[in-house]
Structure formats: structure tokens, C-alpha cells
């Protein structure tokens, strides 16, 4: 038995890779479709957008690049579907240069699906350098920070920006962030001075670090990872890639838990041995 435990502790990592690959692929081929529970932090974002009057301004900051696409694109799609369904005006931008094409693609895709027009119902401003100072520039004067949008159309006079001079005129801001240049930066340089309500959407790995902001009310809601995106899809009753991916994530989590527990069982079996594993 001890010999078996010893062999299992030193198992070839390619076997673990195969198990994870199977756990991810099989549910995608044959989903088991378990119900998604909605957390209060995701519901808070949904409720705030739901309560906004028509033609209110939702600002969506795509603070991620293609590496976080599987987690954050479904959040962006679900938020845009909700905003367009509510007939809100949406302003988009990104702080991540390599995320520009991705963000524009999401806007174009969802707008076409919902029959919305660029420059009338939404605008994607694109990327500009500066990070925190860009937020301050937008807080002072949006048109100085972005004289033209991603399509090089002058921003001044755009119907979608009617009545919007700076960030103070934004009704709600959601930053979809994969790292430092995102939610915290928007709070520190934006919300704190220009007084708009904001929420965050993040990858699963940084979500726990954002809970203090949520508890203190610095952000009023948080969509965390693929699970958060699936919860939002449940709320808008329009399933997408997040709901489909949750089965794969469930299975992968389950495999990792089983592996960790098994490894601990083998570890305890070998614990008393001389030269035991550590």
C-alpha cells in the first residue's frame, strides 16, 4: 500500500494534465447544465442598471487584453446586452492597448445583435496613454482627453454624448479589469473626485482582492470571474459562453479538489517513513 502511495505522490504530471484536459473538454461536449446561483454582489450591478432611466449613460471600461478574454468577454457581452435592452447610452474605452481590437469587436457584435447604432447609441473611444492621468483628463473634459473615437470620428457633437461633458455626467461606470490598471485606478482617480457610481468586473484570480472595496461601498457591485459572468447571464435570462463554460470549470475544480485530497491521503500514509515526502 505504501509503495502505491509513493508512486502516486510522484505521479507523472502529464497524467494530471490529461485529467484536467478531459475535465475541461467533456462538459463542453456534453454539458450537464446545473443551475447558477446569483450572488448579492452581481445582483447589485444588475439592479443598479435595471433602475437607470432610458438614455442614461453607462461607461464600460474594457481593462483587459486577449489573455483574459474567456472570463471578461462574457461579462462585457452580458452587460452590453442588458444596457442596450434598457436603451441606455454606452461609452466604452480601454486602458489596455492590446485589448483595443477585442473591445471594439465586442461592441460591434452586440450592437449588431441588438440593432444599435455607433455614435447614436454607443461609442467606443479606444485607447489613450496615461492610465490614472487619462481618467483625470476625462474627469475634467472628455473631449480634450478623447478628441476623436476609435473610428477617428470627432467626439464633439456625437448624439450618444449629448449632455456629457466629463465623467461627472456618467450615471454608472463598470470597469472590467484583469489587473492593476482597472477597478482600483478608476476608484482612486475617478469616482473619488468626480462622484459617479461604479462597479467592477474582474477575473476570478483578482476578485477576492476587491472585496474590501465592495464592503466599504467604494464599488457597489462586483462580477467575479466566469462564475460572475454566468450569474449575470442568468439575471438577464440570456445564456451565453459563461453559462456554457461553468460546467467545464465545475469539473476542473472537482478534479483539482480530488487530486489535492488524494495527495494528502498519500502524504499521511508516508508521513512516518524515513526520508518522507515534504
Amino acid at each position, binding site marked *: 500500500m505504501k509503495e502505491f502511495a509513493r508512486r502516486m505522490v510522484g505521479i507523472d504530471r502529464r497524467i494530471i494534465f490529461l485529467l484536467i484536459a478531459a475535465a*475541461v473538454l467533456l462538459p463542453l461536449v456534453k454539458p450537464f447544465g446545473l443551475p447558477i446561483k446569483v*450572488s448579492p454582489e452581481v445582483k447589485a450591478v444588475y439592479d443598479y442598471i435595471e433602475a437607470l432611466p432610458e438614455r442614461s449613460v453607462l461607461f464600460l471600461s474594457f481593462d483587459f487584453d486577449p489573455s483574459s478574454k474567456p472570463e471578461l468577454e462574457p461579462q462585457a457581452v452580458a452587460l452590453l446586452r442588458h444596457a442596450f435592452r434598457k436603451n441606455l447610452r454606452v461609452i466604452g474605452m480601454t486602458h489596455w492597448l492590446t485589448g483595443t481590437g477585442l473591445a471594439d469587436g465586442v461592441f460591434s457584435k452586440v450592437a449588431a445583435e441588438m440593432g444599435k447604432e455607433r455614435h447614436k447609441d454607443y461609442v467606443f473611444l479606444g485607447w489613450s496613454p496615461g492610465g490614472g492621468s487619462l481618467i483625470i483628463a476625462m474627469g475634467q473634459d472628455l473631449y480634450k482627453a478623447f478628441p476623436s473615437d476609435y473610428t477617428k470620428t470627432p467626439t464633439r457633437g456625437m448624439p450618444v454624448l449629448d449632455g456629457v461633458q466629463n465623467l461627472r455626467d456618467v450615471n454608472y461606470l463598470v470597469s472590467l479589469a484583469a489587473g492593476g490598471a482597472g477597478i482600483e485606478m478608476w476608484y482612486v482617480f475617478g469616482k473619488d473626485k468626480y462622484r459617479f457610481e461604479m462597479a467592477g468586473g474582474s477575473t476570478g484570480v483578482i476578485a477576492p482582492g476587491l472585496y474590501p472595496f465592495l464592503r466599504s461601498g467604494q464599488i457597489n457591485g462586483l462580477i467575479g470571474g466566469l462564475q460572475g459572468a454566468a450569474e449575470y447571464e442568468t439575471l438577464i435570462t440570456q445564456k451565453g459562453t459563461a453559462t456554457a463554460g461553468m460546467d467545464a470549470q*465545475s469539473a476542473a475544480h472537482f478534479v483539482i479538489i480530488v487530486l489535492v485530497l488524494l495527495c494528502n491521503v498519500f502524504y499521511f500514509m508516508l508521513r512516518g517513513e524515513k526520508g518522507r515526502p515534504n
Partner: protein
Amino acid sequence: MIFLKRQLPLVITFIMGVTFTLQYYIPHPVSEEAITNVAKWMQIISGFALFLGLASLFHVHAVKIKRQVPGWGYSLVLYAGMLGMIAVGFWSHGETRVDGAQTSFGWLYDYTMVPLQGTMFSILAFFIASAAYRAFRARSREASVLLASAVIVMMGRVPLGQFLVPWSWDVTQWLLNVLNSAVRRAILIGVSMGAVALSLKIILGIERSYLGGGRDQ
């Protein structure tokens, strides 16, 4: 020259640091105009920083290729990728789409950059699983607590876990909202106080390492 290299940057840092700390508390039109203009300067300076970063990256990898250090082939691939992307970007006038049709720049972005970055990130799942199997052991009381909470959170954050162990959802919410928040808040307060102290040291000219060269510069 010493004045330009040492005293002038320190004077600029002190004046700008003090002025724009006070500016935050003065909502006068003159003060607002000042921050509007300075924010624009900072945006422009950040743009130059991007070029500096790019130039530095080119330089580092050029040296590696020239000296043929181990792995210099990767630097060559980096050069080819960057120069190729820049050339195609200029060719497409920086547009990913024109009249709904994808440009070659857009094609490169969609079919090389997006899948490559996605692949890099998704490989993590495999390595995390392998590392967790080998390293996540209940060696001590503290490690056991960490192991138990990790298992509960991994269960509570996915539908299968919530289905098999229904209480894992509530416990996960409590762990994230109470214990995790408290610890993260403590870390954040510590980091923020450190940032304030460092900012003061820079404004007052005590911390000068940003000038380069060493403490006595």
C-alpha cells in the same frame, strides 16, 4: 549640468507635488484649468514612455541576438513578430476593420495575438493543477486551515460544488466577505501608508533613486 541633472528635477518634483496635492482640495476654476492642462501633459508624457519601453525592448533583444546568448532565437522571433506587426499596422493605417471588412492588421490581431495570449493564460490551469497536487499539503495547522478553506471556496464558486455540498455557497460567501476582506483591507492600508510615505519622501527630495545612478546623485 549638475543643476540640470540634480537640482532642477528635485525643484520640479517639489513644486508639482505640493501644488497638485493642494489642488485636490481647491475647486476653483483656475485650479481646475491647471489640472486639466497637467492631465493632458501627463497623457503625452505617458505616450513617450511607451516609445521608451519599446526602444528598450528592441535594444535588450538586439544585444541578445548580437551576442548569441542561449535562447537568442526567441529574441529573433520577438523581433520578427514586432516588426511584422508594426509593418502590417502601417499598411492597414492602424485600422482593424474598414467598412465592416477585416484588414490584415485585424486578421493578425484576431488570429495570432488573441489565440496566443489565450493559450498562454489557459496553460496556467494545467500547471496550477499539477502544482496544487504536489504542494498543497496539510503539513501544519496553518496549512490545514488554508487547505480546508481553499477546498470550500473551490466548491462554493462552481455549480457542481454548490449542488454536491449546498452549504459550501454560504461558507464561501462568508469567507470572501468577512475573513478575506479583513485581511485584504489590512494589507491595503499598509500598502497605502507606505505609498503615502514614499510619495512624501519623493516630494521632499529625500528619496532620489528615480533620478538614477544611486542615492548620492
